[in-house]
């Protein structure tokens, strides 16, 4: 891939095309690319998944480790979501201290998971006030062709749903050699994922390619799951200087449950 930034030409072209409801790859504005999910990226992980959205690829691994509970919540385990934008995945990513995108990505995934209550952190206590499980969710883009946040959120829940609690040996240490079959305790019917709407001109699109994403002027990301069987928005974050209008929010909210249903169905079919 080239490192050339998006040109005025391309931005204008996309603005016009989106206004007519068209995209270069023939998709509708709200249509996702082909979604593929595989598991067992690493047999060393307690759970792992590889998500492909078109050419975008993210791998997610779950590790469990011993931790100490926070003083204000002695009866709760820990959840820690991190991301590393590997320079392998894009000519845009560089070594060095994380930029804003590398900080925002795991935070958005973290908030969507946390607020959905899919993990009851109280289930992760080994010894109250002293020893708990820390669930590490590590997100690694392998190829960035746009929409990393949504792809990472699909990967995170897919990997979590497959994750197991490690076995302990006779000294109480984690036994890495034997694979346990005890799943990490999760609420069965909840699967938080996120959807990012990108805005260019007056158009909203979902699942942008890198080029579409770079041409867009703003983004709004919603975390969504279910509560008592009904779709429930769990988190929201607007990115960029452009505004979102009342109408655009309404439009997004009418699309969100439909898209959630669609991706959820796909997730359930592979889990």
């Amino acid at each position, binding site marked *: 891939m080239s*490192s050339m930034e998006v040109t005025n030409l391309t931005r204008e072209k996309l603005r016009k095309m989106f206004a007519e409801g068209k995209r270069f790859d023939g998709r509708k504005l709200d249509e996702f690319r082909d979604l593929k999910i595989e598991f067992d990226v*690493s047999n060393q992980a307690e759970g792992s998944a590889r998500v492909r959205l078109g050419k975008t690829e993210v791998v997610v691994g779950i590790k469990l480790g011993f931790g100490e509970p926070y003083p204000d919540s002695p009866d709760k385990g820990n959840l820690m979501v991190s991301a590393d934008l590997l*320079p392998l995945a894009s000519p845009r990513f560089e070594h060095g201290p994380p930029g804003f995108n590398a900080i925002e990505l795991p935070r958005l995934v973290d908030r969507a998971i946390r607020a959905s209550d899919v993990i009851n952190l109280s289930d992760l206590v080994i010894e109250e006030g002293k020893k708990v499980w820390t669930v590490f969710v590590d997100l690694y883009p392998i190829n960035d062709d746009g929409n990393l946040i949504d792809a990472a959120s699909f990967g995170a829940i897919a990997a979590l749903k497959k994750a197991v609690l490690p076995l302990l040996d006779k000294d109480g240490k984690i036994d890495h050699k034997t694979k346990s079959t005890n799943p990490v305790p999760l609420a069965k019917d909840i699967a938080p994922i996120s959807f990012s709407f990108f805005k260019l001109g007056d158009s909203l699109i979902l699942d942008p390619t890198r080029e579409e994403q770079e041409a867009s002027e703003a983004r709004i990301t919603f975390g969504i799951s279910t509560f008592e069987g009904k779709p429930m928005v769990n988190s929201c974050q607007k990115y960029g200087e452009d505004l979102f209008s009342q109408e655009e929010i309404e439009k997004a909210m009418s699309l969100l449950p439909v898209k959630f249903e669609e991706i959820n169905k796909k997730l359930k079919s592979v889990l």
Partner: protein
Amino acid sequence: MAVKKDFKRADGRKAEDARPMTAKVGVIPNADGSAMFAFGDTVAIAAVYGPRKLHPQHMQNPTKAVLRCNYDLLSFSVGDRKRPGPNRRAQEISKAIEWALSPVVDLSLFPNTVIDVQIYILQADAGTRTAGINAASMALAQAGIPMTDLVCSIAVGKNDTNLIVDLSKGEEDFEEGEGATDFAVAKPANSSSFSLMQMDGKISPELVPEATKLASKVCEEIYEIQKKTLKDSLLPSEQEKGAKK
């Protein structure tokens, strides 16, 4: 040769057998060249970007490109979670990989630029740097970088006094007798000289040349896999797949 033909290993391999090897090129569409290489449960991916601009400017070389390698483990590729980001081990291995690859790469065509080689381990079961070098060598070729040869890499070593090829994690942790020796070797495929030699353990002086000789033999197998994988990637069916991706 000091290989005991009848020596049986825990996973049933013969002493001079590498684990099953798989390889693929073009695994990272954004990259100028990319490849995956696996020895059994050890899986490495490599991406090459460049030649491209090198910052800061004072690092530029006006006579040739700079080859810059980066090797690291993904956090969940190992038993205890590895904290993301390179540690000293990763930095040392990155440099050793740079030295392993640079003898075959012709950097003179691209002064003042950098060729970045990014290697990450998805799943680690020993032999990660050797898998990484095999992947990186294919990725460099696929990126169209001028090269005099491909580089092949394998670990040879010992369990007690038995010379063995491509140690698994279990064999690396072997503790009886002389214990475990791990000797990572790389060489240009068509040369009889070595570009990577890193060893830990206990090995007698007369056994060292035996070990490198054994490594050379296994490198021939690796070379065949690299060649086939690269060439097959040009077949029309593979190309159309690539175009659709």
